[in-house]
């Protein structure tokens, strides 16, 4: 076996067409790097990511001049995979590669000699790490060509349909008695005006006709064991419990509408104060038009409706009252503005005599075709009033017999004039809260944000993925979104599920913990420190004719966080590709400069 001192590191420094070389003296860096221990080759190129740049690496690898590669260029998020690919094309193992970020973290933030010096140090540290890199093989595990979608709302249904369309069996697990989720509660959808029930009927017809989709309603997942490609779910039905073996899981657990607390804008105190979902249901149930020309609610004509935005959303500590659990919804629920205006337009267009007063903090009708709802509401003579977060409208019993309620508001659109708006009905534009899946998230080690929505790894680099391999997310369990966006996310989650399972075999990143059997004494500190149950365990093995206890990694389950490496007194376990000892060498290179 070659020692690290024998390693031949090739260092390739990019000019980035001046992005780097305008501030870093690239040739001076090359001259210094060339003399560093272990560096066999140091070259520069105008664009290392170009074909001629990559050819430099390929030629040097093929000729045996080098066996480790460092490219100093832009951020690794842009071209790390490019250069790993070049190494692979040279017939070498792609994991003998280390990246030095001298554009975003040097030339774009430092200038002159300090930039040149820092670039040199970062390359020196990268070369030190590269000398201890070893070829790694992707972890291959068999994968069951089956997916489970948890949640049977629009996101779950769309995910299941797309996955099934690609020849993979799917089970949908829905805790209520029927599929459709929140779409069941919606009427005409903004901005197109399509009927939610028509869309649902069409899509449910496809689900029921798909032979490879199994539907389990009235069921909840109580536990998840296993790892990517090979999960086992414990499912509890109303009368029985059963297990499902699956290769991947899509979390589409959805959201619920915010329920105002007793007395919030008069909710629960006055029967004429209702939530937006209640209004939508009333509009669905109502005749298209009434003879009187008024919208009717509870059998009574509604002359004035006041609609209050941002109820249960964009809450501010110190201003809004937290729930019993201390929770404040500081996020914008994104969909309520359009939904309120959509409802206001329906009322004005169907029941012309009913007056609508829209009380908002800000209006965010984002998305294609949605700003038109605002224009339409203005044309429909909806009256807009604007309030500030620290001076919210109050709902009181009217002092006159004409109307049951009065909404008091300081209207920013009329220079903070204080208005008393008489109302027959007050509608609270309640926001979106994630369904409570804390138990399942905790069992599956899924990250949850402080806002209680589930967190993907990264919105741009790894959207709809969890750090737990083989688990994806879709729809409003992730963030407030409308039905269209939920379908987009569902498509993305389905595509990733299919890409993962289609071959029947999964290749995983090899950046997982590895035990050195020569050093492991079986203390078990690593097992205690491991944050992923089942990834590390102590096992009895035969060594030198004796039975000894040692730690064993289940590579497919290891998250690669390295918590184990920190606690081993023998340094017998480390993280492949990101080893503690490599970091120690990098620090040495930094302090030596």
């Amino acid at each position: 076996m070659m020692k690290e001192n024998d390693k031949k590191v090739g260092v390739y420094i990019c000019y980035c067409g001046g992005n780097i070389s305008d501030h870093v003296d690239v040739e001076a860096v090359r001259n210094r790097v060339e003399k560093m221990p272990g560096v066999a080759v140091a070259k520069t190129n105008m664009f290392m990511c170009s074909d001629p740049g990559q050819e430099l690496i390929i030629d040097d690898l093929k000729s045996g001049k080098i066996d480790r590669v460092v490219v100093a260029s832009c951020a690794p998020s842009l071209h790390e995979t490019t250069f790993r690919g070049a190494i692979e094309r040279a017939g070498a193992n792609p994991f003998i590669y280390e990246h030095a970020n001298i554009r975003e973290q040097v030339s774009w933030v430092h200038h002159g000699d300090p930039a040149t010096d820092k670039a040199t140090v970062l390359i020196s540290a990268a070369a030190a790490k590269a000398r201890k890199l070893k070829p790694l093989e992707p972890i291959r595990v068999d994968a069951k060509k089956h997916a489970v979608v948890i949640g049977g709302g629009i996101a779950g249904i769309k995910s299941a349909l797309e996955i099934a369309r690609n020849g993979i069996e799917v089970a949908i697990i829905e805790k209520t008695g029927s599929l459709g989720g929140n779409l069941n509660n919606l009427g005409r959808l903004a901005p197109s005006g399509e009927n939610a029930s028509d869309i649902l009927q069409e899509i449910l017809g496809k689900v029921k006709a798909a032979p490879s989709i199994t539907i389990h309603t009235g069921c909840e997942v109580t536990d998840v064991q296993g790892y990517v490609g090979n999960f086992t779910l414990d499912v509890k039905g109303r009368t029985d419990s059963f297990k499902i073996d699956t290769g991947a899981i899509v979390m589409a657990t959805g959201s619920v509408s915010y329920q105002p607390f007793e007395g919030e804008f008069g909710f629960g105190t006055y029967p004429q104060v209702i939530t937006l979902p209640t209004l939508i249901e009333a509009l669905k149930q109502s005749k298209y038009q009434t003879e009187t020309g008024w919208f009717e609610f509870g059998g009574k004509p509604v002359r004035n409706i006041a609609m209050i935005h941002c109820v249960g959303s964009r809450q501010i500590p110190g201003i809004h009252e937290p729930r019993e659990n201390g929770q404040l919804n500081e996020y914008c629920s994104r969909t309520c503005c359009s939904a309120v205006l959509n409802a206001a337009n329906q009322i004005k267009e169907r029941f012309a005599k009913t007056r609508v007063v829209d009380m908002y903090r800000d209006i965010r009708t984002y998305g294609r075709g949605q700003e038109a709802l605002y224009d339409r509401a203005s044309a429909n003579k909806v009256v807009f009033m604007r309030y500030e977060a620290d001076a919210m409208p109050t709902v009181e019993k009217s002092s006159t017999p004409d109307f049951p309620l009065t909404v008091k508001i300081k209207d920013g659109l009329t220079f903070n004039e204080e208005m008393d708006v008489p109302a027959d009905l007050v509608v609270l534009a309640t926001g979106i809260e994630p369904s409570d899946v804390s138990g399942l998230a905790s069992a599956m080690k899924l990250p949850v944000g402080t806002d209680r929505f589930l967190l993907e790894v990264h919105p741009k680099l790894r959207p709809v993925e969890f750090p737990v391999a083989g688990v994806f997310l879709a729809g409003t369990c992730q963030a407030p979104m409308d039905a269209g966006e939920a379908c987009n996310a569902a498509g993305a989650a389905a595509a990733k599920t299919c890409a993962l399972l289609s071959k029947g075999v999964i290749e995983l990143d090899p950046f997982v913990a590895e035990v050195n059997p020569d050093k492991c004494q079986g203390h078990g500190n690593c097992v205690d420190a491991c944050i992923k149950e089942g990834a590390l365990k102590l096992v009895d093995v035969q060594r030198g004719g004796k039975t000894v206890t040692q730690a064993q990694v289940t590579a497919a389950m290891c998250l690669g966080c390295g918590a184990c490496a920190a606690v081993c007194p023998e340094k017998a376990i480390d993280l492949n590709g990101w080893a503690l000892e490599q970091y120690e060498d990098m620090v040495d290179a930094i302090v030596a400069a």
Partner: protein
Amino acid sequence: MSSKANKILILATETCAYPGADSVGQAHSSYPANTYILRVKAPVLFPESFYIDCFKKGISGIIVMSCGEECPYEGAYKALADRLNSVYQKMKALNLDLKRLRLTAICTVCNRAFLNEINQMNELVNKLGPPQPA
């Protein structure tokens, strides 16, 4: 080469703080060059001894830029916070100023917070000079 003194080591998580540092670069916001960012999957990898050794080797300040409560490795952030508490105990015993080690959360677009952390640490290490563990 630049001064050997007052080097700041930054351990930046690959999903949050490291792209956060790239975002600062994309904004061309300048900060002191005595800062060396190491990309880590999760800083829970580092034992107490790693931090103490860094100070012994001459690193003047360390900023652990984590993902905070939004850590993609459920449970790792708490383990990290506990770890750093015991590093602080060790630093106390070695008469090292505890402010030389700082745990913070930096998101992918937290440019201002990133710059604040660096400028504060730089001010501190310039005042304190290189560490001299007892």
